[in-house]
Every structure is written in structure tokens, then in C-alpha cells.
């Protein structure tokens, strides 16, 4: 058992070369939010199901003479319920506090932080930025998770502020649910690969939509002999991810500014092509192009897989509705459409064979000395560190 409380104090968050300095009160703000989010998930969320079962669904049935047929009908009915309104207003308010708190830490020391990253990135052949890469509409039009400016806004030269703010706030949003280095998903992917393919040592791995690099850096640490290419369209994220990885002693990743729909690399170039927690931030046409690129870039016999929250098919309507909350009220608009797609059809359309597809699960891996033994109790509808993994062999 861990001696630390859940969630643990923010002072335990892992430090790296592009960590901003924190004042006491800045850490205290994130401590408050981690506690608030934990409270909302454990104590307040369950009342939504109760409100639905005891008054919202009966009222809907009385009015329509039938039960709701899809999650959209559930949502329209729940939006009129005072309990759901209260929880939603609190959760939205918590997300806005989180953004302001993170941006305060980062923006007050913007120049110093950008200089730290620039020193780590200076003339590195493993950071390949390309200002000619067009930012696709699905990134340009959305400030994901209510981050003002999204992933791509640059407030100064060599800016890393968007990524630094993303990095420092994950702990507060998830109550530490992704670990002190926010890499619980990367550790989960690495362990999943090792246990499913114990003798597999891929020479080249492509990670698409790499973001701040939390996941790919953990994968690179687990596969130190692999050569990894990470692509993303957002320069601030790539600068940060590269600097962070360097400062953690990870040298087997090249970060490249490119669109995952059109990666400037040759056919059959990779043993593994993967995405983690990325596809839901694209669009209906983009996800098809990304799948086609996956097929093109993968060697025959290669492995591709994608880590996401579970698809909606087969889930109760109420759970589908709750999982849509972040899509509609925390700026993840494609989330709702992506989770209703037939992903095997998507892979088949890209040229993959159905008999070589698989679906699996992966749970986040955390440091037990701080977080204790893993426990699967609180379901926060889309924010739990437990994912669905789908993929295919070429």
C-alpha cells in the first residue's frame, strides 16, 4: 500500500527539462482541482444515473410512450434535469479553472520556458519542423479541452506554451490518473506490446499525432533499440516533446512536423504504425486518410494499432450519453462521431484484411509506490485510464 493520499500532492509530479517553475500557490491550485475532480467523479457523477433512472427516463416514457432510442434523445432529456445541470456546470467550471491555472504558470515565465526548450532543441537533427505544413481544419477550428489557442498557437518565437500548459494540467484533470509523468498510457502500450509479442523487436516505429510526447517517450524507453518517428502538425507540441524527451535521456525518437494524412516518408517504411488518444481529434475524412497512410507506410507483416476510449456500439445508451460529455462540453467534437464508427470497416476500407484485425484492452500503468495497487473503481466516462485498443497486421 502506498503511504500517499489519492490523489497525491502536486509536488510529486515528475520534473523534466521543460518543466516550468511553480510557486507554492500554483501547486495548491492544482491540488484543489485534483481533489475537486476526484470528488466530482466519485461523489457527484453517480447521481446522474440515478436522476436518469428515477425521473428523466420515466418522464420521457410518459411523454413519448416509449424509451429513448439513442444517446441524443437521452441527452436532450437530461439537459433539462437540475442534477445533470449542476454537475455539468461544475465540471465545465473546473475545466476552465484548470486552463487558467496552467496558463498562469506557463505564460508568466513564457520567455524563460521557451529558452529552456530552445537550448535542448538547438540544431538537433531529431527535431524536423516544417512551417509549410498546413494546419488541418480539425485542428485549426477546435480549442481541444477548452485550451485557448489549441495546440498550434504561438505567442512568441520558439513557443512551447501550448504543450507546457497541456503537460502540467493533466495531473489535475485526472487526479493523477496518468501518473507523475503523464505516461500511464505509454507504459500500458509498451506492456501490451511486450506481453502480446514477447519476441518482437521492431526496427522502426511510427507514432502519429504525438502531441506533447508523453506516450511515445514511454514507448521509446521500453523499446530503446527501436528507431521511432513521431509526427504532428503542431510545432509547439513537437518542440516541447523533443526537449522533454532529450532531457529525460530518450534519444531514439525523431519528431517531425507533418500531417498524418500525408506523411512524407516512403511506402513500407515501418514495422509498427500506431496512434494513441489521437484519432478522436481528427475528422470523418481525415481518419480515413490516416488509415490509408497507415496501410501505405506499414511493411508487409507489420503491426498497426490505435489506442482510444471504447467504441459506443454495445454500450448502454446512458453510458454513451455520458461519454459524449467531453465531446460536446469540453471541446472534443469528433469524439462523438468517431466512437460510433465501425472501426473494422474503417481498416478494411484502407486495404487491411479482416482476418488479421484484433481488438483488445489496455489499462494505465502507474507507479505503485505513489498510487498503490491499481484499482478499477471510479468510472469517469471517458477520462478513466483504461482504453480500447484496435489494430491489424498487414
Amino acid at each position: 500500500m502506498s503511504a500517499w493520499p489519492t490523489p497525491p500532492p502536486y509536488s510529486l509530479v515528475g520534473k523534466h527539462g521543460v518543466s516550468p517553475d511553480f510557486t507554492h500557490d500554483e501547486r495548491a491550485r492544482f491540488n484543489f482541482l485534483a481533489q475537486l475532480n476526484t470528488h466530482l467523479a466519485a461523489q457527484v457523477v453517480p447521481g446522474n444515473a440515478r436522476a436518469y433512472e428515477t425521473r428523466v427516463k420515466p418522464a420521457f416514457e410518459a411523454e413519448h410512450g416509449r424509451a429513448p432510442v439513442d444517446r441524443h434523445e437521452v441527452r436532450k432529456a437530461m439537459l433539462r434535469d437540475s442534477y445533470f445541470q449542476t454537475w455539468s456546470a461544475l465540471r465545465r467550471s473546473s475545466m476552465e479553472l484548470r486552463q487558467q491555472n496552467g496558463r498562469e504558470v506557463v505564460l508568466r515565465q513564457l520567455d524563460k520556458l521557451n529558452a529552456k526548450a530552445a537550448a535542448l532543441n538547438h540544431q538537433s537533427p531529431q527535431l524536423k519542423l516544417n512551417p509549410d505544413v498546413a494546419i488541418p481544419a480539425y485542428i485549426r477550428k477546435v480549442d481541444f479541452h477548452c485550451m485557448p489557442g489549441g495546440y498550434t498557437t504561438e505567442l512568441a518565437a520558439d513557443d512551447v506554451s501550448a504543450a507546457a500548459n497541456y503537460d502540467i494540467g493533466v495531473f489535475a484533470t485526472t487526479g493523477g490518473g496518468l501518473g507523475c509523468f503523464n505516461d500511464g498510457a505509454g507504459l500500458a502500450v509498451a506492456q501490451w506490446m511486450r506481453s502480446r509479442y514477447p519476441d518482437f523487436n521492431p526496427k522502426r516505429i511510427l507514432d502519429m499525432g504525438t502531441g506533447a510526447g508523453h506516450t511515445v517517450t514511454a514507448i521509446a524507453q521500453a523499446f530503446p533499440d527501436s528507431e521511432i518517428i513521431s509526427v504532428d502538425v503542431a510545432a509547439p507540441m513537437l518542440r516541447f516533446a523533443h526537449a522533454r524527451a532529450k532531457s529525460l535521456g530518450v534519444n531514439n525518437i525523431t519528431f517531425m512536423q507533418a500531417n498524418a494524412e500525408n506523411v512524407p516518408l516512403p511506402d513500407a517504411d515501418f514495422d509498427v504504425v500506431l496512434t494513441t488518444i489521437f484519432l478522436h481529434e481528427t475528422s470523418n475524412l481525415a481518419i480515413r486518410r490516416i488509415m490509408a497512410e497507415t496501410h501505405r507506410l506499414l511493411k508487409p507483416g507489420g503491426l498497426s494499432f490505435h489506442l482510444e476510449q471504447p467504441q459506443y456500439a454495445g454500450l448502454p445508451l446512458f453510458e454513451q450519453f455520458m461519454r459524449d460529455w467531453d465531446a460536446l462540453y469540453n471541446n472534443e467534437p469528433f469524439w462523438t462521431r468517431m466512437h460510433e464508427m465501425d472501426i473494422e470497416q474503417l481498416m478494411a476500407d484502407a486495404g487491411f484484411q479482416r482476418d488479421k484485425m484484433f481488438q483488445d484492452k489496455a489499462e494505465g500503468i502507474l507507479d505503485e509506490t505513489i498510487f498503490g495497487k491499481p484499482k478499477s473503481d471510479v468510472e469517469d466516462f471517458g477520462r478513466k485510464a483504461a482504453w480500447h485498443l484496435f489494430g491489424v497486421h498487414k
Partner: protein
Amino acid sequence: MMEKKPLDWIALTGAKPLGKRPYFFDDPAVERVLAVTMAVAQEVAVLRERLDTIERLLEKGNADFSRADIDAYAPDPAAATERAEWSRMYIARVLRIVQQELEALNTPENNVDIAAIADELGRI
């Protein structure tokens, strides 16, 4: 030549993200008040944590600490556990009304209108 205007970083911290903000309460004014209240609630928690840090530094017997010592303070597991416990109680206090609404939902038999009970007591 025009001098480059420095960033108003304080204004930037609270910038609005793209997209229309959802308002959940029937009257948006209620939601505005809630958002203000939660921001103030956060700041009360921050003040309390700072006071707790100062008390713990004082308990170490050295009154000669600086603001830098406060910024550098990191609780050990015992102190972190006590601070987390205070936070849990604090949030439970602030959100008491939500807890009571949930209890009313969970046990409707304990949620009878008091006027109805008064009528009943007048009869029995």
C-alpha cells in the same frame, strides 16, 4: 518605429476557447455566479494550504524562513495525507447542497414535503 507591445499575460490566462460556451442552467446568470463562486472557493483552498505550509515550517522550530522556503515546501506522506483530508472535508462543505440533492434522489421516502407531514400529524 512602433515598439512591440508586451503580452498581457494575465488577460491571456483567462482567454475564451474557440466555440460557443455551453450554459447548463436555465438562467445563465446562475451559471456565472457558480463559476465565480468556484474560482473563489479555489482561492480559499490555496490560502488555507499556504497557511498550513507556514504552520508546518514554524513547527520545525525555525521562524526564520522565507517566501522561497514556502515555495519550495513539499509535504511528506503524513502531511500530504492530512492536507488531502482537509481538502476532502472542504469540498464536501462547499458542495453540501449537491450531496443533499443526491440523497433526496437516492431515498425519496425520506424526502416527503414537510407540509404534507404537518397535515398528517394534524390527522393522527
